[in-house]
């Protein structure tokens, strides 16, 4: 079932120079089905973050449409930086979306604690962001995105700033959350749109990869991947990586 469809979306950003601005996206069209794990893969400046913000409704498109055939679902958003409130502890940070939806305090606390447990941070409820490592901060950020039980998760290069082992661990956690939602009867499927510039990460996580190319941003290839789970460094995995890398535009200069 189609969750969302972008049709001929274009977005231009004003620049300091009076040259009409930079065309970030031109004629971007794709559909995302419920339960998919879609990676938007491309080099910096290809408009993938802009596409994510358009989907979230944080930016309006200049032309074209972002449609939700059913209705716009609850969205969780994770930024490249953890984007936590430094003056609030982990629990209060995760509770923020619930506070904004006027969920009663006690219930909010319980749900926030449960979300922290889901990302493996039980016992860190009252730690402040500065007391947490980069990976732990990111987990708090993911817990905050999950706490409203969204059916669409938008992630904007969430692990790009992390070291390799932490990144691998968080990749596995994210996959586990996505599979849990899919395999648990009665639970709504989780749809993930994941922005990354890492071929390996997109190959490991996604059920589908949309390869983007810059100037102006557009979809260069739409690759459906065989169902997982995948084994890093296995021949099948390397084959997927090769397929994705081949679809990437020649290095942007």
């Amino acid at each position, binding site marked *: 079932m189609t969750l969302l469809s972008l049709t001929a979306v274009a977005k231009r950003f004003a620049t300091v120079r009076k040259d009409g601005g930079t065309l970030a996206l031109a004629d971007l069209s794709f559909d995302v089905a419920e339960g998919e794990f879609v990676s938007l893969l491309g080099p910096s400046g290809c408009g993938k973050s802009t596409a994510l913000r358009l989907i979230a409704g944080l930016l309006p498109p200049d032309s074209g449409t972002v449609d939700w055939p059913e209705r716009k679902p609850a969205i969780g958003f994770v930024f490249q930086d953890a984007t936590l409130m430094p003056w609030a502890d982990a629990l209060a940070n995760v509770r923020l979306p619930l506070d*904004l939806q006027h969920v009663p305090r006690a219930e909010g606390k319980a749900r926030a604690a449960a979300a922290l447990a889901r990302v493996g941070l039980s016992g860190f409820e009252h730690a402040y962001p500065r007391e947490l490592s980069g990976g732990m901060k990111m987990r708090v950020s993911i817990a905050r995105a999950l706490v409203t039980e969204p059916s669409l998760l938008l992630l904007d290069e969430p692990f790009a700033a992390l070291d390799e082992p932490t990144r691998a661990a968080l990749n596995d956690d994210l996959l586990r959350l996505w599979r849990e939602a899919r395999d648990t009867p009665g639970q709504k499927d989780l749809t993930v749109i994941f922005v990354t510039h890492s071929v390996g990460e997109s190959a490991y996580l996604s059920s589908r990869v949309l390869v983007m190319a810059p100037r102006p941003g557009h979809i260069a290839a739409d690759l459906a991947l065989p169902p997982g789970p995948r084994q890093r460094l296995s021949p099948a995995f390397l084959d997927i990586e090769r397929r994705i890398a081949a679809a990437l535009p020649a290095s942007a200069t």
Partner: protein
Amino acid sequence: MRRLFDIALPLIVLAAILGFWEWKVAHDAIPPYVLPAPSAIAGALIDNFSSLMASLATTLTVTLLAFIAATAAALALAILFSESRTVERAFHPYAVVLQVTPVVAIAPLILLWIGYDRVTLAETLIAALVAFFPVLSNTTLGLRSADFNLVDLMRLYGASRLRILWRVRLPTALPYLLSGMKTAGGLSLIGTVVAEFVAGSGAATGLAWRIVEAGNRLEIATMFAALTLLALTGVAIFAVLSLLEYLLLRRWHESAIRT
């Protein structure tokens, strides 16, 4: 041990300076109308204790009123500035004009307008004008420094501007506000001293006027006693505001974390 030494060291320096001062005055037979000995200043402080305390209370009242008024007005204006570029464009130049105009120069005018029968109000306004600007500029900067992504996140969950202000912008601005308040605390005292000088005799009984008065009567020891109280007041204001800053920021802000 180390801590004790840190506290003791400046006190030892103080004792040494006072000792040398006392000895020098006695040894060179410096007349008390040029430089009174520390013991004479202490004596003047004790002799005039109740009247000096009354003057301290007057000065402190004006200083605190001015500080509170300046902080409240600056915070309110900073919120307006940060929420509306139009308001900022319209009023910011005048805030700057107010800042660069030496308030001493307009103090007589303010006194004239408000009147010598309401001299406390006039003095408070003068001191508040002196203290106002650092809070305004610091807080405006702080409110603007909010993490864009955090603001976007709030919008994603449908937060109103007021909620974004309350939950994100104001907490972000808090360290900036407190830093501005620390500057404003000292400036309030300076502004009050200036206001008392300008207000002159008759109405004014604050510490600054006591200094002028004692100077006219060549009671230099009393002058020093009043000056000492003024300095101690300044130190106390700074200490209280530093403590407030520490208590509010110690859990999360880099500036307040002890290493």
